[in-house]
């Protein structure tokens, strides 16, 4: 039971189709399970994200700090129509993406945080997020901004996204770019991968979310970003 005041503080929620889990074989041969996270898993994710908020490398601090706040807002029912997808490798959290439905037709992409770097976990998870908005939530477009040069290259250039500068994205900062259904389906063959259904025994490895080794994760984020000549 929630009291009357709390009920007034909680936003109304749109019905949201679930994201069906999928598995992806990474470049190193490891399998990443991508699935929807539940509110019950927020605390586990916050514990993992928290140390990253102090990492002044490639905007990891701002991305993880804002993601922390967004997940907390979701848990406390203060963000409307939010969802979160996670990638796990051997049960360990490899990355998180989140966003929300602005309305039935429009989606808002929030953040993409790769905790396991160098094997395009972020690229896969961002693609899963776009897949969720376009194919499962059946939306017409997704509004996106990048908070790092890496994000700009991954989303704006790699897809490529179109500008929609007349829309101010909820994250503030730069004006919005947009992924349309047309852009998505053109990019899908080269960017959206994964196998469904995920065998139950493999899916089971992703529960509960486990913390990657903290030192390994922080060193990897600091040192092993790959860029190519």
């Amino acid at each position, binding site marked *: 039971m929630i009291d009357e005041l709390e009920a007034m503080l909680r936003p109304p929620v749109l019905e949201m189709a679930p994201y069906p889990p999928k598995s*992806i074989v990474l*470049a190193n041969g490891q399998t990443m399970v991508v699935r929807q996270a539940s509110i019950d898993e927020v605390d586990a994710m916050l514990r993992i994200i928290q140390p990253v908020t102090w990492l002044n490398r490639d905007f990891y601090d701002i991305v993880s700090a804002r993601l922390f706040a967004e997940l907390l807002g979701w848990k406390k029912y203060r963000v409307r129509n939010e969802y979160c997808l996670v990638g796990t490798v051997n049960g360990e959290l490899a990355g998180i993406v989140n966003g929300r439905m602005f309305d039935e037709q429009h989606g808002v992409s929030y953040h993409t945080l790769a905790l396991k770097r160098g094997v395009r976990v972020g690229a896969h998870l961002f693609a899963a997020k776009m897949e969720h908005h376009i194919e499962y939530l059946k939306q017409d477009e997704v509004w996106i901004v990048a908070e790092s*040069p890496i994000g700009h290259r991954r989303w704006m250039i790699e897809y490529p996204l179109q500008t929609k500068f007349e829309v101010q994205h909820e994250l503030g900062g730069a004006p919005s770019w947009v992924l349309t259904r047309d852009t998505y389906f053109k990019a899908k063959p080269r960017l959206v991968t994964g196998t469904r259904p995920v065998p139950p025994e493999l899916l089971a490895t992703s529960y509960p979310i486990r913390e990657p080794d903290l030192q390994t994760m922080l060193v990897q984020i*600091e040192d*092993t*970003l790959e860029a*190519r000549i």
Partner: protein
Amino acid sequence: MRDVAIVGVGSTQFGRAQWSLLKMMCEASHEAIQDASLGDRKIDAVFVANMGSARNNRMAGLASALVDRMNLYPAAAETIENGPASGASAFKMGFLGVASGFYDVVLVCGGERMREVNNLEATEFVSFLSHRYAEYVYGVTLPGLAALFARMYMERYGVTNEHLAMVAIKNHANGLLNRKAHIRDSITMEGILTGPDAINNNPWVSEPLRFYDCCPVSDGSSALILAPANLAKELCRKPVRVAGIGQGTDTHAVHERPDPTELTAVRIASQKAFHMAGLTPQDIGVAELHDAFTILEIAESEEAGFFPKGEGHKALERGETQINGRLPINPSGGLKARGHPVGNTGVSQLVELSLQLRGDAGKYQVPSRPKHGFTVNFGGFGNNVIATVLSEGV
């Protein structure tokens, strides 16, 4: 000329540097000096290899700065820029200084800090080495040139994307054993080429080259100490002799070559190095080749004379270039996994080869304990190449 030996080697961790370029170079130089047990003996000259510090790090006159920072006065100091072959060029100048008797003890240090700029700027800076009016102004980049080269090579000799992936997988596996390598993660054929998710794991960079066909942008520094052979025995328990050095040049613009699949400068440089050493490719037990792109390892292995033209990929298929194969190539991980701080690479190849010949390469030691090793340091897109033969002992 006097016989010259490498009497000390040192190297930083490759990857993204936590420190300034100069501090990295000091770290590598200090390690090399310690390794050489120089004692009170003065270093006569310092040769520094670098390609882009003035642009990327707002630093010039690196050799003078290194002498000052390391209190090596009054050593002579020269900074050498020869594109990605700067390292081997600096080494060659140091060698000539000692061989001629002009100097006795020389420090050669390569250093590059490319991660201070973003990777688009790094790509732009490396592409400065292309022909300004025939290539650069049209937007040619090094991956672009390598892709054109790879496409011709594939059509002519039957090299496939699978062969290119085999080079990457081999060198990543080797890099996993090298604690100083930039990339220490294994990759699989399913993950980067044949699996359903490979298209996103390993996207096109410049078709037919994919992400894992290209080396990373790395920071790193390496250093070595050269001394005449007679002095080397006093300074070092396991000196490595500089047996041969060869250099070749070719047209600046790749399209002006009669056959762009021929790396003539590699062939000439290799032949000269083998001639000077009095050895043949069959005598070589380990090689560090300039695999900035996977196709280059295959092509260079042929031009150097290790395999007939067009058959390097077949040797790869047979496992001959694996760390336990007949001719291990890039046991350090090569540019592909150890990393490619461009101006430093030639020095780092020679450091790695020295470790192999001394038996000091640790987990990535070639098991056959080779007596002779070989490097190719590839400048421009093959328009200025230096090959070196090193031999165990003096």
